């Protein structure tokens, strides 16, 4: 790890980085391979926080909100990937990939919040120990039947898929709705966008599994406000919007005639507010 190289790279984007990191400027410039590697993350964390001290409470709250959602998703996949015979053999690899991504998101967000000086969220009934380094597996925190609404989720693959699709599509909407809250810290904003598109890739894949399994109208993209199951409707309300930035998409020219209503709704995903998301996920969280 060559700290000077890193800072020199930053300097290309921000010529004043050394000044911002002052008064440690001279120390920094003399930094070399001699510095204990173990000490670097800590030193970096505090220096960068001082230099780019724009991690506001809003940003930290938003990161913790994202962490709460990632905990739900990770625990969902972790629990059901272990249920023998639930997930179709051909799909096991895909759901293992998705679980790994959600775990990576949990770990990434935990570290980001800690590095920014925030208090890292832990789920209710969490027993994993340290909020940053402890196990994120927290079965006591969640009820993925949502109080019996999805009672056969552990034995009926179709139910599992419907809930999975809903979680992913909801995750996409949640990140989208929070983007503006991260504009005071552009690095965090970029990180969040990079998670957001991963959730959308997951959503598309799960939606396609359901489509190929017989839900033929269920395409990788969201048509209208169609939900995979009635109790999940709240996660899809508003997706039928056809007006973007004052422009009515169905009045625009398509390939033959105007853009269709279906295409207009599919071409733009819609956000949800934090309150809307909380309402959606609350039934899955044990009080």
């Amino acid at each position, binding site marked *: 790890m060559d700290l000077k190289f890193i800072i020199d790279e930053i300097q290309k984007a921000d010529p004043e980085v050394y000044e911002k990191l002052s008064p440690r400027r001279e120390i920094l410039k003399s930094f070399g391979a001699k510095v204990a590697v173990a000490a670097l993350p800590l030193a970096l964390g505090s220096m960068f926080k001082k230099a780019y001290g724009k991690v506001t409470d809003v940003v930290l709250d938003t990161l913790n909100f994202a962490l709460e959602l990632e905990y739900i998703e990770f625990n969902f996949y972790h629990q059901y990937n272990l249920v023998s015979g639930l997930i179709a053999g051909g799909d096991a690899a*895909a759901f293992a990939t998705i679980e790994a991504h959600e775990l990576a998101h949990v770990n990434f967000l935990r570290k980001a919040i800690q590095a920014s000086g925030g208090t890292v969220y832990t789920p209710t009934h969490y027993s994993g120990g340290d909020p940053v380094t402890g196990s994120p597996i927290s079965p006591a925190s969640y009820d993925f039947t949502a109080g019996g609404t999805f009672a056969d989720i552990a034995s009926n693959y179709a139910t599992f898929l419907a809930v999975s699709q809903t979680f992913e599509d909801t995750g996409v909407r949640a990140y989208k709705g929070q983007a503006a809250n991260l504009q005071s810290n552009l690095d965090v*904003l970029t990180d969040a966008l*990079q998670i957001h598109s991963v959730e959308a890739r997951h959503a598309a894949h799960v939606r*396609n599994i359901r489509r190929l399994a017989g839900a033929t109208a269920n395409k990788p993209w969201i048509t209208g406000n169609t939900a995979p199951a009635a109790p999940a409707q709240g996660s899809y309300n508003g997706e039928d919007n056809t007006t973007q930035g004052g*422009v009515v998409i169905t009045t*625009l020219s398509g390939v033959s005639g105007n853009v269709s209503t279906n295409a207009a709704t599919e071409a733009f995903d819609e956000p949800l507010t934090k309150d809307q998301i909380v309402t959606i996920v609350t039934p899955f969280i044990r009080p």
Partner: protein
Amino acid sequence: MKTQNATGPSLLAEEGTVSNLSRRRFFKLAGGVAGVGMILSACHKDNNNNTSAGVNLGSGDIGILNYAYALEQLEAAFYTHVISSQYTGITSDEIALLTDIRDHEVAHREFFKTALGTSAIGALTVNFSSIDFSSRASVLGTAKAFEDLGVAAYNGAGRLIKSPDYLLLAGKIVSVEARHAAYIRDLLTGNSFAGSDVINNDGLDVEKSPATVLATAGTYISTKIDASNLPK
């Protein structure tokens, strides 16, 4: 929020299918004074947007919207050709979903064109000579490259956007591009929707700067694109 300036004659004296009221609503989204200033200054420079030497994307949020418009033009032109000149062995299912994608990209293109109004760059000339449209591998390989590039482009551009409303609009589009990318990747290779070639160990997708994206996209665009005024 003062938006009166944005409803001046220069913004309304243009043809199109969107009513002046809708246009006004869109520009109202530009947010505070800063956003309005950028739109107006971009409008003043309109005559410079399309020169014989190429197009200038412009500056500020308008520049980023034009950047997105350029990419959507490329994608829309590509899928329009894919559907009008289908590859050998294409299935009815692939026709249906690739047609959907074409229609999404056309909607994105027409949205940016309408929203940008007089600030919009002109139509770009594409160059698909390197693509064999009769070959499934060539077409889907190119589609994958375009979709992954689109995702990386929007992910990288988010930080360059000032207006929260434009940021949200970009967010509404990027997740659809990610859905396309996942579908196309799965068509090429099962379960590659979020492969380790695009998702890193932190579970993060790719983000790229406009310069990097345009260097790649430029292979398929004959029109010279000047991105030198984009925010950095």
